[in-house]
């Protein structure tokens, strides 16, 4: 089968890229190994309760944000209904026996930090000034910028920790800002470049929202638009081998089922280390394979879903975090907001994210039939429930477990290496991959290439597509929807 472009993977980056290409007249095929599009975004239903997976809340959807512009361009804005989280506290963080509530709005978030850490006021002002500056001056966060201002991107490798220390922040302030970001992108304060932190956290500070139907709401909007634009979506089609010519130009690919697809360009949105087995040796140089092998990943999540007849009011639109200390190799633990105010019953969702050095997927052994796997899984479930009951004592005896997902589950569903929550680590110590690699016509996109998270992967889809269509052209198209 012949197409103008093939997109491998139907996560948010792939869906965004495919829709942009279609709007520009390409004939597009999307190949997804799972049996339905968007395995990470999609909710599932157990015992009458909807369970969220890869979308709980997000920044970037306020009416003045760049996603608003991008979604209007894509024709999706009318299809989605962002619901703001609690404006006074979208996240509530337990720290040193106290509770720190993060309100929506950069000014409010700044004040909250100042009230909580009065001794770190210099650092806090510098921190929020930097975030505001970054959001203002990063083109794809601010479509007001002219196309030729693209080169003003921040290039400094200074880490969040180094920056805050330089401004004499208290250790607790660094811990809080760092571990909160760790929850949202899987990278600790001593590793994450400040500008990168700003791009991920900034949109959350500006305003966090959720969707009544969770990831399904975004997914349904995308799939409907893709179908009406004529996309061909092939599910249960795992790409096995990518074919390149002797000149290292993309030619086509074959799936595990032996189907062959051809196209002029191809975007791979899966975890980039998967390319190790997909690209032809002898044509692609060992340097590229070694580079892939050397990449370090963010840690894997462990998720438990609970059903409960009634849910504490305070959990309606605030997430509760227990950050844990990375020095002690403690997990980050979160109880995600669970709005029961509409007709669909929603499961409570508990997420742990392992610190560096904590047991990862290997601990869960290789096969689900292995008793050690269940052992490990049960221990982790108990750990999560104990933390949950400590944070919400009123819930004792009021809930039951309906499902749990291990790092292994995430690897199986999305193919992300070792089940890593946010893909490849974006850190100063390793040179990240870009959409362009050493094979012509083959491009990369997704959380491992640009930024993790809902906003990051949508922007990634946009940025990668701009390499194919031309940045200036796409920029002009999108800016008309300001």
């Amino acid at each position, binding site marked *: 089968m012949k197409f103008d472009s093939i997109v491998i993977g139907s996560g948010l980056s792939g869906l965004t890229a495919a829709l942009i290409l279609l709007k520009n007249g390409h004939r597009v095929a999307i190949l997804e190994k799972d049996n339905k599009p968007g395995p990470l975004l999609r909710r599932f239903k157990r015992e009458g309760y909807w369970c969220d997976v890869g979308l709980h809340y997000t920044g970037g959807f306020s009416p003045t944000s760049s996603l608003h512009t991008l979604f209007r361009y894509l024709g999706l804005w009318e299809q989605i209904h962002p619901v703001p989280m609690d404006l006074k506290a979208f996240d509530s963080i337990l720290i040193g026996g106290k509770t720190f509530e993060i309100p929506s709005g950069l000014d409010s978030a700044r004040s909250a930090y100042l009230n909580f850490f009065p001794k770190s006021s210099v650092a806090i002002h510098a921190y929020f000034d930097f975030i505001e500056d970054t959001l203002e001056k990063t083109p794809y966060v601010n479509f007001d910028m002219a196309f030729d201002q693209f080169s003003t991107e921040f290039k400094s490798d200074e880490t969040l920790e180094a920056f805050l220390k330089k401004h004499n922040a208290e250790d607790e302030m660094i811990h809080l800002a760092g571990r909160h970001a760790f929850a949202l992108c899987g990278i600790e304060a001593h590793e994450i470049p400040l500008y990168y932190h700003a791009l991920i956290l900034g949109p959350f500070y500006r305003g966090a929202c959720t969707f009544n139907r969770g990831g399904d709401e975004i997914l349904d909007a995308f799939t409907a638009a893709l179908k009406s634009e004529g996309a061909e979506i092939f599910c249960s089609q795992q790409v096995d081998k990518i074919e390149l010519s002797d000149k290292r130009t993309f030619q086509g690919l074959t799936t595990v089922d032996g189907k062959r697809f051809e196209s002029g360009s191809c975007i791979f949105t899966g975890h980039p280390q998967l390319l190790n087995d997909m690209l032809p040796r002898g044509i692609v140089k060992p340097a590229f394979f070694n580079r892939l092998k*050397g990449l370090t990943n963010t840690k894997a999540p462990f998720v438990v879903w609970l059903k409960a007849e009634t849910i504490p009011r305070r959990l309606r639109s605030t997430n509760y975090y227990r950050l844990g200390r990375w020095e002690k190799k403690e997990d980050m633990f979160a109880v995600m907001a669970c709005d029961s105010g509409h007709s669909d019953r929603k499961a409570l969702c508990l997420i742990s994210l392992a610190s560096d050095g904590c047991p990862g997927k290997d601990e869960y052994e290789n096969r689900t039939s292995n008793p050690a796997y269940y052992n490990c899984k049960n221990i982790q479930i108990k750990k999560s429930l104990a933390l949950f009951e400590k944070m919400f004592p009123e819930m004792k005896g009021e809930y039951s477990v309906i499902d749990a997902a291990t790092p292994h589950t995430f690897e199986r569903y999305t193919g992300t290496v070792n089940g890593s929550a946010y893909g490849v680590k974006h850190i100063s110590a390793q040179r990240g991959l870009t959409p362009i690699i*050493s094979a012509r016509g083959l491009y990369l996109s997704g959380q491992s290439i640009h930024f993790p998270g809902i906003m990051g992967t949508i922007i990634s889809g946009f940025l990668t597509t701009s390499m194919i269509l031309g940045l200036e052209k796409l920029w002009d198209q999108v800016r008309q929807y300001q």
Partner: protein
Amino acid sequence: MESSHNNVEEKVKIVLVDEFELDEAELSPDATLYDDLGLDSLDSVDLVVALEKAFNFKISREKDEETIRAIRTINDIYDFINAKQADI
């Protein structure tokens, strides 16, 4: 001094042979990476990463970008590495 220079040349050659499958016999100092050796601009980032690993230093996006872009021959690589090492 002499021996450390030879060491640099040796290591760069190992990178080019092992990581880019080039023929050692063709690696004369004035051989151009793109025209003579058939590498292309798409290889440049992979080359930077391979050199960082081989010499255990970081090539900065801010400071070294211009110099990296100006590299044409194998000798340019030697010069770059030597300058970089003198810097450290």
